[in-house]
């Protein structure tokens, strides 16, 4: 499967290690091997690449890099073939609700972050993958994104909730 457009998002956090890892040579080469043409990086409060670095990557690998701090990202999500993000619930839900391939990168700097719980649970149910920063390039080269399950809402469970509230109110 081709990963033509890859969207990297750190949300409102500062996650320099993720931006550095995704723009490292092995990671970019792994993306290139998977036909990646464009990398969009929402870097939030993390350090972006310098203009020179962006130019260098464009020249040497033929990979387009677009960076921005914050903006409404509905279109970035919609157009992405793969979303790479931190373990924020918002990013996880964006991946699931838009049926996108997702790779959550765990921020080792934030110990005791309960948000890992959600990414880990969703990964154990095969809805997305998660990775340590150090393993990112290897995972980008080897993960089979087609093996992920689409996320489907379960209306019958929601009906059980409605029935319980109805009963409570009667």
């Amino acid at each position, binding site marked *: 499967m081709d990963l033509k457009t890859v969207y990297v998002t750190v949300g409102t956090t500062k996650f320099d290690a993720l931006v550095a890892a995704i723009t490292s040579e092995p990671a970019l080469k792994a993306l290139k091997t998977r036909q990646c043409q464009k990398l969009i990086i929402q870097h939030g409060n993390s350090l972006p690449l310098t203009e020179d670095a962006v130019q260098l990557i464009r020249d040497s690998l033929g990979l387009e890099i677009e960076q921005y701090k914050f903006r409404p990202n509905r279109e970035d999500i919609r157009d992405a073939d793969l979303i790479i993000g931190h373990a924020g619930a918002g990013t*996880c*839900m964006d991946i699931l609700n838009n049926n996108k391939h997702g790779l959550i990168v765990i921020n080792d700097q934030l110990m005791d972050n309960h948000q890992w*719980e959600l990414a*880990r*649970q969703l990964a154990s149910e095969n809805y997305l993958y998660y990775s340590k920063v150090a393993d990112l390039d290897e995972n980008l080269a080897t993960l089979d994104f087609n093996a992920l399950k689409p996320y489907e*809402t379960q209306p019958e469970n929601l009906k059980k909730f409605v029935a319980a509230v109805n009963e409570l*109110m009667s």
Partner: protein
Amino acid sequence: MTYVILGSGGHTAEMGRLTQALLQQEDATKAASYQPIRFILASSDSTSEQHLRQLLPKQATKAEFIQVPRSRSVGQSWLSSIFTTLWALLWSCYLVWRDRPQLVLCNGPGTCVPFCYAAFLWRCMGRLPSKSRIVFVESFCRVESLSLSGRLLLPLADLFVVHWPSLATRYSHKSNLRYFGRIL
């Protein structure tokens, strides 16, 4: 009347779906019993109202939005949080006393804590009908442990919904805590 307490971002989207499910259920009489709906949102939250108005069914066009002060902003110091929390609690007590909601429905943002306590208090004092209820839906991202709001509200919510089996197992001794599988 139903009070729906909103947070921000993901919380709002989740709450929109739950409210929609209550209002669009097949039994029209039951659906109507949740009307009118008042959405409570933090005064710093500028996007939730617009977002929800798009989600809501036609029947809920009369929904009102009320802005209240936040009990605590992210990063606020603990000392000043004490005062803002008290202020938020006073506001909650006033609004709940004034509107007497039958149902207070919330899903995790800090804003909901004072409202639930206010509803509980006024029910004990007889200002709210004895069959008024507090329903708390834990945040979707809590898989293994409860949120602070959740821990504060577990003792007084009439129905406390969790999204993941490990929480359901851990709190299986709590009769008000329920797990329906994945509802979002």
